[in-house]
């Protein structure tokens, strides 16, 4: 079951949800957040926390994302300048004490330019780990805007679902799959995707009733709907647009065109 697989993967990302909660509840006033990626030293966690405690004299917290071995450091009360200064000290310290170390740091403060959503936090961690330069990186609003979209793929055909999942994942979208109309409606409510890419012929519920149901779901932002279907009857196409579908693509489809149309929906 591809759905449950993706859901499991999401649970590993619990760290970022946890961080979000701490930032919002425990440190609502001001808190610097620094993500550090530095492969090599085994005791990196204690090394970092000891050094920073000495330097700042305040209560800092270090958390670890086990799957990528990226550290998240919370600096309560730090302004952006202070956090940057600490990062510079930390970087020099690591370079001096650990041979051949190449620490990569991304940092920002909350509340600041961006809100501490799990997506943003994860993106920060990734920019620390995968960023091109070894300079300390300050995370800004412009970057957060490119947060990956969530797409729910609904189709009864295994091949189509697999193809779309791989392709959309490569473009950086987060995806989930549903086989039929009924489970798709449940997933939309639970997962709140930004876009639903759906066939019209589905088991359970399909066609226009399905589209109407999506729009009536009690979710904060009704997802955009892109129909990708065998159905080529003009009347159905125009009815779909009347019922608020964002785009309509017929099978067989051009993947490049599909990319372009989906990309436009996210602008």
């Amino acid at each position, binding site marked *: 079951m591809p759905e449950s697989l993706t859901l499991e993967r999401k649970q590993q990302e619990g760290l970022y949800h946890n961080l979000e909660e701490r930032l919002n509840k425990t440190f609502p006033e001001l808190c610097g957040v620094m993500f550090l990626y530095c492969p090599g030293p085994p005791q990196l966690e204690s090394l970092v926390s000891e050094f920073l405690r000495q330097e700042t004299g305040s209560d800092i917290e270090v958390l670890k994302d086990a799957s990528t071995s990226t550290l998240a450091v919370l600096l309560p009360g730090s302004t952006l300048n202070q956090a940057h200064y600490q990062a510079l000290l930390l970087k020099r310290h690591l370079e001096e004490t650990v041979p051949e170390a190449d620490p990569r740091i991304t940092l920002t403060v909350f509340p600041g330019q961006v809100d501490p959503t799990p997506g943003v936090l994860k993106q920060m961690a990734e920019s620390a780990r995968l960023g091109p330069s070894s300079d300390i990186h300050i995370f800004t609003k412009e970057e957060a805007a490119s947060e990956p979209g969530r797409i729910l793929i609904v189709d009864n055909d295994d091949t189509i679902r697999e193809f779309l999942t791989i392709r959309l994942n490569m473009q950086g979208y987060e995806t989930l799959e549903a086989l039929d109309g009924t489970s798709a409606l449940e997933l939309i409510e639970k997962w709140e995707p930004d876009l639903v890419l759906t066939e019209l012929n589905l088991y*359970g519920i399909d066609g226009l009733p399905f589209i109407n149901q999506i729009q009536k779901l009690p979710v904060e932002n009704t997802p955009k709907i892109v129909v990708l279907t065998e159905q080529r009857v003009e*009347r159905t196409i125009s009815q779909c647009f009347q019922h608020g579908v964002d785009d309509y693509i017929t099978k067989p489809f051009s993947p490049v065109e599909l990319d372009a149309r989906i990309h436009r929906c996210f602008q």
Partner: protein
Amino acid sequence: MLVYGTVAIYYVMFVNILYFAIMGLSYRSIGTIAKRAKYSSYQTLSGSELVPSVSLLVPAYNEELTIIENVYCLMTLNYPTYEVIVINDGSSDDTLSVLIKEFKLEKMHNPEIRGTIETQNVRGIYHNPDYPHLFIIDKENGGKADSLNAGINFSHYPLISSIDADSLLEKDALIRMARMYMENPEETVAIGGDVRIANGCLIENGAVKRVSLPRKIWPMFQSIEYLKAFLGGRIGWSRMNGLIIVSGAFGLFRKDYVIAVGGYRGGYPGEDMNIIIKLHRYMLSHKIPYKVAFCPEAVCWTQAPDTYKIISNQRMRWGRGNLKNMIENRGMFLNPKYKIMGLITIPYNVLFETLNPYFRITGLLALAGYTLLDMTHWRILLTFMLLNFLSGYLLSVGAVILEEIAFRRYKKLSDLWKMLLFSALKFVGYHQLGVLWRVQGHIQYLRKNNSWGTMTRQSWKEESETASTA
């Protein structure tokens, strides 16, 4: 007396030869059927503008348990343009209100009813723009034929399809039929679908998820019976254009010709056979080339009665309807004007379906009498009965093989053995009961007992719950 015995023996021999000939025709068609079922690109067809639109007519009388599931099933078919028209035939239960509640329907103002076939008073038509292809007609009770006529009057499209409210269509069933229709749209006037027994299958979301044989014996016998009748019989009959019935559970018709023959005949069961005979009659007497086809790859799953009372009721009703149809159309009997229909199908039905019980009973009595009077040896009697059984068994096995060649819906090996076993068991008891029910039906006809009889339904959920726990 001896002459009668000889006649009875020849009768049995002849009927068996005829059965084998029909099955032979089925075998000649099965290769083509298997290939087209496998390789036709139904996916592409199911979205094409060129496929003709269909109105599905679903007569419902006291169907509150199954109707919602069925409507959901019918609304998710793989088909470009179609509408679902449920006709509530003055149900005494909550059929109408459960539909209104589930689909939030509202009564239409000034619905446009274009057809002119006489029906019982239509009380109202219900619709919800959120489900643009669903309509409910609420009318006063008038029987199944009357409901279908009311549906025809309201329907918007040139093809109509009658579907029983206790049946589930496979997602591709309708497009498969339409593909067959599109091969010869000028001449095809009616197409029948393959009806199978859903008891024992796992049903989810209004679709059959896992196919397996029924666990109760009544539905099990009927499974074999249906397989034999549809695959062994109807494929062969349709090959020579002599099909006398398109099952009421699932059939596709040209609306213009159904209207031309005056719609369905009310007031008596057997309306599904009646409409086909009327179509044959109309086309032949107007000398229009035509075809009544059978589409075995279009599958409809139906709930079979699972108690003695209900199945006997159903079979008596069939016997009654059959007798009525034969008497009504006696003018076609051996009438060369009606070609295959008049020369083969109708005589076959009269001699080997309607009168079958009497030949069997008297033949058996005669043979038993001979043995008692020592006019023949008991061994001959035994040999005769054994031969009779073997040919019957061979026909059932033949149908199972047809199924295995073309469709393979039953995936488990144990199911295959079970089918072979019950094909044999059928001749001990069930077969004889069938003869009895038919005679009882005829008695009902003579007594002018014209009720539909009870037909209780089980909700699909219960069905599949028992299936999943098995």
